[in-house]
């Protein structure tokens, strides 16, 4: 399997590239000042607006650092029918490995995405994360159950 890796703070995560439509640089976004914290804005992707969240802001309470290594990952959300932009730090590496190399960590935590299957390498643990579990409920409600203001 092929994964795209990124970092949230010091923790490393992997998402299945099958869920990734494209990886873009940090674009300037049209901001929505009244949107909840973490919704960074939206941009025009082939004529349709795509909402973008800043994962560091959502999860850690601080915006992502605007570095070259911070990328905007365009993911297939909600079974692939919607696109969502995710600003993630250090999204510059891929990992090719067997599915079985990710093992159940046996730990679940409330609030944060449940500690899913993990894989150990020389730098520590990488957690396999599903796109659909990236968003806390509150943000998900705003993004996809109400139309964003034009």
């Amino acid at each position, binding site marked *: *399997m092929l994964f795209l890796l990124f970092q949230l703070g010091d923790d490393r995560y992997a998402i299945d590239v099958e869920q990734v439509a494209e990886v873009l*640089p940090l674009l300037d976004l049209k901001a929505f000042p009244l949107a909840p914290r973490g919704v960074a804005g939206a941009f*025009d*992707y082939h004529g349709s607006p795509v909402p973008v969240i800043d994962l560091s802001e959502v999860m850690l309470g601080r915006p992502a*650092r605007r*570095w*070259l290594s911070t990328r905007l990952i365009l993911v297939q959300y909600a079974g692939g029918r919607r696109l969502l932009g995710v600003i993630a730090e250090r999204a510059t590496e891929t990992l090719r490995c*067997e599915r079985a190399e990710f093992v159940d960590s046996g730990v679940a935590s409330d609030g944060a995405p449940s500690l899913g299957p993990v894989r150990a390498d020389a730098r520590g643990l990488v957690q396999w994360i599903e796109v659909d579990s990236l968003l806390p409920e509150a943000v998900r409600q705003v993004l996809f159950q109400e139309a964003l203001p034009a």
Partner: protein
Amino acid sequence: MTDRVPIQRNLTATIASDQGLTRVDDCWNRIGVRGDGSCPELRRHVHCRSCPTYFAAAAALLDRAPPPGHLSGWPSRLAHREPVEVETVLSIFIFRLGAHWLALPAAVLDEVVDLGTIHSLPHRRRAGVLGLVSVHGALRVCVSLGQILGLDEEEGSEACEEGDESQGSAGSGKGEPACRSRDRRLLAIRRGAGRVVFPVTEVHGLQRIEAREQGPIPATVARMAAAFTRSLVTWRERSVGLLDEHRLFQALARSLA
């Protein structure tokens, strides 16, 4: 499975601050292949370019603010460029496996053949592999799709014997038994150089569907099968699971390796 690898301590050779300034320790010039070769990791990685420390240093170079003007032009480029995939109509091949109606993209279907003798392989008992089958004189690996997807292939055949009409089949409006064992076929599929056959309970045939007719997979679908299913399509008031051929062939490659 890889052996447990101890965490390399010298991976913290690079330091990044919030201003994006990176101080990189170029150990490859000092103790690596371009230095005196005294680095202990050289014995494991042979050359610095295979070493994760080198890789991390390169990645850390990107932890800096982009140069001015770097991002200009991107927004207009993205707004106007043609989308990568424009698939409005899909051609799929619908078949039944046990009680489950499934489909595959028509592009992977090679042919449908009558069920022949499956010659089991004596010394290799791999999960999902049933053996070899002769298809027009060529030997093909025969697998059990049910085992790979985690679905019961026999489910539904009890219903056949009882003449359960709710199963239905193409053209059974007359109240006949829903399926007969002679409906079973072998499906031969192909992707690139990979060719595989598997038995199915019943074959419907090709169907063209609009891409937007695809629906999400409900949470009630067994997790293993859901991983292989791209979407759900409604056909003749049934839910047909459209399988993801990429994942299927990945799983087949694992079984046959």
